[in-house]
């Protein structure tokens, strides 16, 4: 009798263990997900390979910027988020090519490809260690995803276990949405100039 009970208990325990393991196995994207360094808007965030600080965030309904040399009005059904940041490589020359706006509900909005050729946007220049550079990141998001978002910046969206800065965007002025912001090529310290109407 004891033997039978022991067998039943052993089988149940094995089934429970297998079920628990099956439910908790991390998926591939979790195993290879970027290594996150958390930070806050307005403060310097240091990952192993680079440092980033978010300076200003502007919101607009429309962006005027050149498109293949001609002026063009970039409209959106949501809101344009223009993030001005400073970045710096730590140990070796590198490029930051991936930026994502992680909404409060977990939806990911990648950096807009519509304006990815503007000077200073991720992927347009190489960073050298010790030389801080300005960086311009532009996202197109629905209005509901503005507050409580996190900005994710990394060297590449595809490299497994890459370093990623996760900046909590706590000071986005969601009531200050400009109708039009014009982005022009800058000449001085900043490679771009923003003009709000």
């Amino acid at each position, binding site marked *: 009798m004891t033997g039978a009970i022991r067998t039943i208990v052993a089988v149940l325990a094995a089934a429970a263990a297998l079920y628990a393991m099956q439910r908790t196995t991390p*998926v*591939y994207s979790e195993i290879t997900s970027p290594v996150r360094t958390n930070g806050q808007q307005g403060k310097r965030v240091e990952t192993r390979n680079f440092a980033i600080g978010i300076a200003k965030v502007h919101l607009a309904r429309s962006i005027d910027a050149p498109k293949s040399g001609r002026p063009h009005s970039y409209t*959106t*059904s949501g809101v344009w988020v223009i993030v001005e940041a400073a970045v710096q490589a730590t140990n070796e020359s590198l490029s930051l090519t991936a930026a994502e706006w992680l909404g409060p509900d977990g939806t*990911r*909005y990648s950096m807009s490809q519509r304006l990815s050729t503007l000077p200073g946007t991720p992927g347009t220049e190489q960073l050298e260690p010790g030389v801080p550079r300005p960086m311009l990141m532009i996202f197109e998001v*629905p209005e509901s995803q503005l507050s409580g978002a996190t900005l994710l910046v990394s060297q590449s969206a595809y490299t497994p276990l890459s370093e990623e800065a996760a900046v909590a965007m706590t000071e986005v002025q969601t009531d200050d949405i400009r109708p039009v912001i014009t982005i022009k090529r800058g000449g001085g310290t900043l490679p771009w100039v923003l003009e709000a109407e």
Partner: protein
Amino acid sequence: MAAERQSTLRQRLFAILVAGIGATAASAASFAMAVYDAANPEPIAAIDAGVQIDTGKWNVMLREAYLSPAPPTGIQPPTPTTFLTVEFDLENRSAASAYASTKLFTLDPPVEALPDFYLERDLWVAGPLNPGMRERMIATWELPAGQTPPHELSVMVGSQIYKRRDNLYGASGWFDREPAARVTLPVAARNESIAP
């Protein structure tokens, strides 16, 4: 003792036999169902233009088809080319920005070339579409020289399924499935010189 052992052996044989018959019946039934499904495919729903189709990853609404001598960018190709152009609305239902897949539409009559997707807002090559932000899109297929442009176009809209773990790596992703719908569009000509 001997009788007891013989009885156990008989019981065991019986159990193996029952299990064997059960397993055979189950695999035969499963195989028969697979064969039956393959022989009798579900008819693909015919949907009108202007009706939204839920394909899994996307909400698609086809609008119109026409022939054009230039892509939506307006940049004329160096040699005269006919672009089979389809306008549609596209909304990303997934949780991350994604490019429209070239496998989203299958045309009948078939066109060998892969489509190019353009964003109507910019009349420029479309980047990834953001979740929940519906956009007017333009797809173009470059017709090879000599191919007669069709008067009517049947567009098969593909569907996708989300798998939290795929069978190879255990990675999450969207996978193409059988078509979700078929939409028939008349092909208009935007330029008289290339009317079908």
